[in-house]
C-alpha cells in the first residue's frame, strides 16, 4: 500500500509540474537573479568571478564577475607566461566556469543572465505598448548566427595579439585590452540600474580606445532599440552563448526530443524568442539544445504531444510536454486573438524580415 501511495504521490507531483506555468516561474527567478547580480554586492554577497552570465564587474553592486572578462585578462599575456605554470590559472578559470555551467547548462541565459532578463522586460514593455515585433528570415538567421562565434574568436585573439606578434605582424594597441568588455552593452547599461552613468563615455586616450568605446556605445544603443523590436536581440550575437554551446553536451540539465512523437505542428518554434526552427523541423536529433537556445523551456510548454519534448537532469525527467499541460496553459480555444497573444499564431503582426 505504501509503495502504491508513494507512486501515486510521485505521479501527482509530476502532473503538477507538467501542468505548471514555467514561464511564470521563470519570470520570478529572473527577477530575483537580476536583483542578485546587480545589487547583491551591496549586501556583501560573493558568488564567483568566472560566471557563465553577464554578471558585470563594472556594476558596483555586482556580486561576481563574468567569465569573459577573466579570460580576456588571462589571455592578455605573452606566450611565455601562458605556457609557464602561471598559465595553469587559465585552465583553473575554465574549470570554475565549467563547474558553474554544468548545473544549469544554457538555462543560465534563459533564467539567470541579467542582460537576458532586461531584454525580456523590454519585450514586455513592447507588448504593453502594442508594437509589433520582427523575426529574422531563414537566410538572415543562418548568416547572422555566425557573428557570435566571430566575436568569441576575436575576444580570444585580440588580447593575445596585444602581447604577442602573429606572423611578424605588429602588436595590437593596448587600448584594445578586454575588447569584448569595451563593446559589451552590459558594461554600459547594467551600471545605470545602480545610478552609475560613468560608463557612458568616449575615451580619447588613443585612436584604438576612441574606436572601441564609441563602438561600445553604438552597440548599447542598438541593444536597446533592437531588443524593442526583436525578442532576445543580443543573445543571437552573444559570444557567451557560443562558448556555452561548446560545452553544452556535458551539462546535467538537458532538453531532449522524441522525434517519433513530434507532429511538426511548429508550436515550439513559433513561441521561441530566438526563432529557432530546427526545434520543430529536426525530428532525428535527441539533444535539441541548439547554439542559440537559452533553455527557457517555452517550447516544452507549447508542445501538445505527450513526452515529445522533455527537460531532464541527467536522466531524470523534471518537466515534460503533455496535452493536459498545454491546454491548462493555453486554454481550449481556437480564438485567433488568444492564440496570437500566446505566440502560437503567425499573425500579420509577426513578420519574417
Amino acid at each position: 500500500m505504501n509503495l502504491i501511495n508513494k507512486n501515486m504521490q510521485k505521479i501527482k507531483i509530476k502532473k503538477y509540474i507538467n501542468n505548471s506555468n514555467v514561464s511564470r516561474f521563470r519570470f520570478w527567478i529572473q527577477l530575483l537573479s537580476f536583483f542578485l547580480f546587480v545589487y547583491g554586492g551591496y549586501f556583501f554577497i560573493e558568488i564567483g568571478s568566472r560566471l557563465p552570465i553577464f554578471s558585470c564587474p563594472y556594476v558596483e553592486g555586482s556580486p561576481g564577475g563574468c567569465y569573459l572578462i577573466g579570460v580576456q585578462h588571462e589571455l592578455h599575456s605573452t606566450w611565455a607566461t601562458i605556457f609557464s605554470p602561471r598559465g595553469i590559472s587559465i585552465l583553473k578559470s575554465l574549470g570554475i566556469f565549467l563547474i558553474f555551467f554544468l548545473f544549469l547548462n544554457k538555462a543560465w541565459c534563459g533564467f539567470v543572465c541579467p542582460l537576458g532578463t532586461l531584454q525580456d522586460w523590454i519585450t514586455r514593455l513592447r507588448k504593453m505598448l502594442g508594437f509589433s515585433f520582427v523575426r529574422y528570415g531563414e537566410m538572415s538567421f543562418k548568416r547572422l548566427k555566425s557573428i557570435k562565434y566571430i566575436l568569441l574568436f576575436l575576444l580570444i585573439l585580440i588580447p593575445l595579439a596585444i602581447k604577442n606578434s602573429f606572423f611578424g605582424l605588429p602588436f595590437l594597441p593596448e587600448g584594445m585590452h578586454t575588447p569584448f568588455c569595451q563593446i559589451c552593452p552590459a558594461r554600459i547599461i547594467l551600471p545605470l540600474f545602480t545610478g552609475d552613468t560613468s560608463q557612458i563615455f568616449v575615451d580619447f586616450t588613443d585612436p584604438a580606445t576612441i574606436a572601441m568605446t564609441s563602438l561600445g556605445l553604438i552597440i548599447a544603443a542598438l541593444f536597446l532599440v533592437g531588443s524593442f523590436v526583436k525578442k532576445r536581440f543580443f543573445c543571437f550575437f552573444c559570444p557567451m552563448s557560443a562558448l556555452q554551446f561548446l560545452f553544452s553536451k556535458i551539462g546535467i540539465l538537458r532538453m531532449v526530443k522524441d522525434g517519433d512523437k513530434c507532429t511538426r505542428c511548429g508550436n515550439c518554434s513559433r513561441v521561441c524568442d530566438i526563432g529557432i526552427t530546427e526545434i520543430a523541423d529536426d525530428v532525428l536529433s535527441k539533444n535539441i539544445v541548439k547554439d542559440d537556445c537559452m533553455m527557457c523551456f517555452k517550447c516544452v510548454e507549447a508542445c501538445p504531444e505527450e513526452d515529445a519534448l522533455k527537460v531532464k537532469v541527467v536522466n531524470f525527467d523534471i518537466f515534460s510536454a503533455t496535452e493536459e499541460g498545454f491546454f491548462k496553459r493555453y486554454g481550449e480555444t481556437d480564438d485567433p486573438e488568444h492564440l496570437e497573444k500566446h505566440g502560437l499564431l503567425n499573425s500579420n503582426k509577426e513578420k519574417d524580415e
Partner: protein
Amino acid sequence: MLFLKKLKKIEKSVLTYLSGFLISLFLIQPVIAQETIWLSNTPPKSMDKEVKANGMHRLSTLETKKRSARPKSGSKKVKSEYGKAAKDSTNKRYTKNEDKKSKRSYGPPPKKYIQWLRKGSSITDAEYICLNDSTNYQLTLMSPEGKKEGIELVKNKTCYAKFELNEEGYYNAYLIIKKDLGDTLHINIAKAELLNHSCRNGHHKKLEARPVNYYPEITDFEIIRERNPHEDYHYFTSSGNMETYKAIFEGKPLAGVKVRINTEKGWSKTQYTNENGELSTEYIQDYFSSWQELNTREIYYYMLEADYTLKKDINYKGKGYGYIHYSLTMSDGYRPARTMYSSMVWGLVVFLITMVVSVAGIFIYKERRKRPYKEIKFNESNK
C-alpha cells in the same frame, strides 16, 4: 587671588605649548626637513633596467627574466639565477632539497616587491639612502587581513625594502626610525599603502578595497587616506580629485596636525587637520597636454608629510625626553584626471545619434514594406 592663580596656570600652559611650538619650529623642523625619510615606489636610475612595474597599480618589482630550473633529483643546489635567493632563509620554497614538503619547488618565484628609502621633501630630487647599522629602525608589513608579513631591508648599492604581496587588497608597510634630538625623541614613520590587485584574480573582492586599516600597536601616530564612496580596486588618485586624509593618534582622530603635500610636478600645499582629524585637498590638475600626447597610464607621485609634537616625559633606552616629535611620510601615485581624456558628452552624443538613426531606420524599413490594400475581384460569371 583665585583669578591670579588661574591666570598664572593659563600663562604656564601657554608658555609650555609656545616653547614646544618654538622648539619644533626653530630646532626640530629644520633638522626634520633634512631628515624626512620616506618609502618610494620610484626606482633610482641605476636600477631602471632591473625593475618592472607590476599590475595596474604599477608597483615596482624586481625583474625576473627566467624562471628557475627544475632541480634534478639529488642535486645539492639549484643552478639558476635564483641561486642566491635559494640560499636565503626567507626563500626556501625555491629549493627542492631544502624543503621537500614545499609544494612549489620549481617554477617562477613569487614577485618581490620593492620600496626604496629616500630622504628629503622633493620627490624628484630626494636622494636614495641607506640606513647605517647603528640606526634604530623597525620595518613592518601588514597584510589586508591585518597579519604581519615578511619584509626585509636589503642593503646593496641602494637600500630597499623587499617583500611579497600574496593577497588582494591594501598592504601597509611601515619603516619607523627613532632618533635622539636632544630633549626630543624624533620618530620618523615612513608609511606606504600598497594596493595589490590583479584583474586576473577576478573582481569578487572589489568592495573590500574600501576598509582602511591602521595599526596603533605599530605606530601611535598615523595618517590614513579615507576611501571614496565608489572606490574599488581600480581606483586611482587623480589630479583634480578631492582626497580626504585623517590623522590618528593612539587610535583616535587628532586635530591640528600640520600636513604638507608635495607632488612630483612641484605643487605643494600645507593644511591642518580639523576637529575630526580630517583634511581634504584637491589635487590640482598640474599638467596639461592635448589628448594625443597624454599618457593616461603615466603615474606621478606625491608625498605627504605630517608633523606632530607631543609634550610628554618619556624614557627611551635609558634617556629621558621631554618631547616626542612624530614625523610621518606617505607616498603614493596619481594619474591624469579622467576628464582630461574621456568625455561623457561625446558618449551621450554617440549613444543618442545611434538610437535616433536606428529607430528611424526601422521605421522607414517597416513603412517601405507596407503594401497598400488591394482587393482582387474574380468575376466568376465569365467562366
